């Protein structure tokens, strides 16, 4: 056990040092308290920076709250933004549980969107096919597209030990260009950066569709994708906590050497986790283009795959907690579109993550201020 780097300081004439001492156990309230505290500190720090660059932090925060939770309409919009965040957040949470740093959720989301678009645009399914066939095919295609994109870095890691952080990031950039090729090239609508609109059968139903029967639902854009996302969260929770595979993932994440000793095949699990993680992100891509924009377009994602990293971390990799956290960040992204300067939401996310990991030190260590009696004074 360590004594930590003690720094002797002088204060009121006596010598004392501030030390970090390892904790034997942490009380159960400490973790959530630290999380909330960290977010609060982060918001304050962000506010300071905002003030420094000339924006009014109170107005900015109030605007975020209003434009995301101010009315039923905007709550619906928030849930729409939250849907891909839940799915990509789940993707990251799953991978991170095994200490597989899947930073490629963004690229996997894009590939999933592309694959789902291909169903309609190639086309894979003939035009005129009814919705109850097209949509499931698109869902599967979206999952497979993302899974494929996740298997590439998974294979590189399992076979060659390639660092997955950089590999997945590079694939993000490649995916981005891939989408651009199709959107500006073969599938382009008149040379603009988008494809033609999908036929209505390929649209995920939204609450607004029921407006004829229930006028109160008019204008609400939240779509079935949200239900799919929540369902995925529940399934993933069950798998991680209650299944043998979930146990293996937890074990590999904590100690790969112990997992190997226990007979678990690590390479196989790397591939499997990357595939499922990529698939979840791919689903996010599918729901986004099928439920929101109804076409494939350039730059349709404001960085969901990256925000998902922070969502997963804030949710402590727990699938059910991902849902509320994703909703909060959905709010941030929604309101963030209108905030000047445009880098603010990204900056806030970064500060939140920093404060979170800095706060974790207090889970593992206790701060103790020890008065050091000067040794020379003790003579026997």
């Amino acid at each position, binding site marked *: 056990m360590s004594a930590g780097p003690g720094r002797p300081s002088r204060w009121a004439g006596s010598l004392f040092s501030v030390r970090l001492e390892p904790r*034997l*156990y942490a009380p159960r309230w400490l973790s959530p308290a630290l999380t909330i505290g960290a977010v609060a500190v982060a918001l304050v720090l962000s506010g300071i920076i905002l003030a420094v660059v000339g924006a009014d932090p109170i107005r900015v925060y109030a605007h975020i709250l209003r434009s995301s939770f101010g009315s039923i309409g905007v709550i619906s919009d928030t849930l729409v933004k939250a849907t891909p965040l839940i799915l990509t957040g789940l993707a990251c949470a799953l991978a991170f549980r095994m200490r597989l740093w899947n930073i490629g959720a963004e690229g996997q989301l894009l590939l999933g969107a592309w694959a789902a678009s291909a169903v309609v645009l190639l086309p894979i399914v003939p035009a005129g096919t009814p919705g109850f066939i097209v949509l499931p095919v698109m869902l599967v295609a979206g999952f497979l597209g993302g899974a494929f994109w996740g298997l590439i870095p998974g294979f590189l890691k399992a076979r060659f030990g390639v660092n997955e952080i950089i590999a997945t990031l590079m694939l993000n950039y490649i995916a981005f260009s891939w989408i651009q090729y199709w959107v500006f090239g073969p599938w382009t609508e008149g040379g603009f950066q988008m494809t033609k609109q999908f036929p209505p059968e390929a649209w995920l139903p939204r609450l607004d569709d029921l407006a004829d029967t229930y006028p109160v639902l008019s204008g609400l854009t939240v779509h079935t994708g949200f239900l799919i996302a929540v369902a995925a969260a529940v399934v993933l929770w069950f798998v991680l906590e*209650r299944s043998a595979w979930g146990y293996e993932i937890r074990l590999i994440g904590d100690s790969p*050497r112990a997992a190997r000793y*226990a*007979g678990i095949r690590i390479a196989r699990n790397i591939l499997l986790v990357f595939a499922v993680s990529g698939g979840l992100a791919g689903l996010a891509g599918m729901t986004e283009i099928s439920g929101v924009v109804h076409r494939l377009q350039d730059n349709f994602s404001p960085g969901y795959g990256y925000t998902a990293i922070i969502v997963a971390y804030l949710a402590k990799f727990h699938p059910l907690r991902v849902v509320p956290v994703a909703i909060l960040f959905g709010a941030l992204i929604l309101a963030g579109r209108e905030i000047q300067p445009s880098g603010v939401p990204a900056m806030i996310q970064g500060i939140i993550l920093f404060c979170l990991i800095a706060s974790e030190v207090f889970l593992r260590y206790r701060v103790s201020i020890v008065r050091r009696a000067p040794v020379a004074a003790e003579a*026997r």
Partner: protein
Amino acid sequence: MTGGPARNAPSGPFGMDERRVSEVEGPLAVELRGIVKRFPGVVANDGVDFALRVGEVHALLGENGAGKSTLMNILDGLYQPDAGVIRIDGQPVAFGSPRDAIAAGLGMVHQHFTLVASQTVTENILIGLDRPRFRLRLARYDDEIARLAETNGLHVDPRAKVWQLSVGEQQRVEILKVLYRGARVLIMDEPTAVLAPQEIDDLFGTLRSMTAAGRSIIFISHKLGEVLEIADRITVMRRGRVTAAGLPATSVTKGQLATLMVGREVLENLERIPMPPGSVALALEGVEADGDKGVPALRGVSLELRAGEILGIAAVAGNGQSELAEVVTGLRPCRGRVLIDGQDVANRPVREAIGRGVSHVPEDRTGVGTAPNLSIVDNLIMKSYRASPIAHGWAMDMSAARGVATQLKDGYEIAAPTIDTEARLLSGGNLQRLILAREIDSRPRLMIAVQPTRGLDVGAIESTHRLLLERRAAGAAILLISEDLDEILTLADRVAVMYEGRITGQFDADEADVERIGLLMTGASAEEAGAIEAAPASRGAV
């Protein structure tokens, strides 16, 4: 510090110096008074006094966990005491870091070597010094260190990279590190744990010549025989307190020391009932395997292990015994045949070995045997989660798992608040109980136990030995790999010695004797070992 009285004392029949107590009076090189050190949950040192006289070898004796290493880490500047005084040559000092201790003439040779494997001997020795000022021109220092090594009888090539050296040679580098810094007081922490008997004799010879040159030595150990052999005086610690201070080595017996160490009569009263030879449970035929660095670790190993039998593998660290365990349990690829109950399992996945009822108590408790941040439950089901009653299709029955865990925790006396406690919070002894509970409860037919009692206190050692013998009586075959010769001789029915990846000798327990085994462990061939034995005993000669 002046040197002590001239020491060319003759060796007595047990290698002890014949000397009268009064000769060892003299100035104190090091004095610790009232040292207190607390860690979360435990008081490691509770008002400890310790005095080292100039020119003596003073042993600090205690079982694992008694607080000896903590005390010496305080002396070495690694920790700061919560209370107490340290005096060097009579002057009170306060060490803020190891640097201060080094400047005061103290040098610690750690139990776990702190060497940079990829750098050369010279580079390792030069770390932390003010010379060379800027440019690193090693040639000059290579020569200087070579000379220092020769002078002190510590043979090692300064240009070699540390990872190429044997364990004994690495220890010499550690000693050279402190000598190069002009250490007058050496603290040796369990130095013999990794040495073969002949190397231990060499080490003792080195220590004696150092004290003859005026240095003072603190010798930390839990091994009674060695302490009696090398020490002038002995201080015994138990549970953070001193139970006997500065006893002259000539005035105590092993039994008295043992009682002081453990607080009760220590009689390892284990019965090894004779077992009829069973079927061959494990057989290796010409097994070859490479180590982590690509260097061959096993060079044609063949052996047989029968049910109801314990085969002890005696070897110095780094001679292939770790790789042997890995090859049998499926953790390492190999060439040749590994037969379990007649079936060749070489290069099969680990899962298969587990499925065949092979248990593995690994060398590395915290890195391999357990997952530190997972709960006791999760650690206990590591091998059994794929089968009923825990497995349920692809889901897991968590209440069944918890039931099993509770049973094991109580049955094997794993001391912890709950079964949800994280494994990293368990003490070494309890962690080993957890591992044993898991590996034994499955009623394995074949057990591979590697260094099973390393670092454990006497109570834990006893219970481990008892459990192994119980398994043996139930008909299991046990491969016991241990650096502790005493343990092997206590438990094993047969002993095999490994050196540089080969089996250099096999004996039945009754024929085994420490000298021959020691010779074989350090590379003497079987004939040489036999020949040397015919000559008069050479122990203690330098």
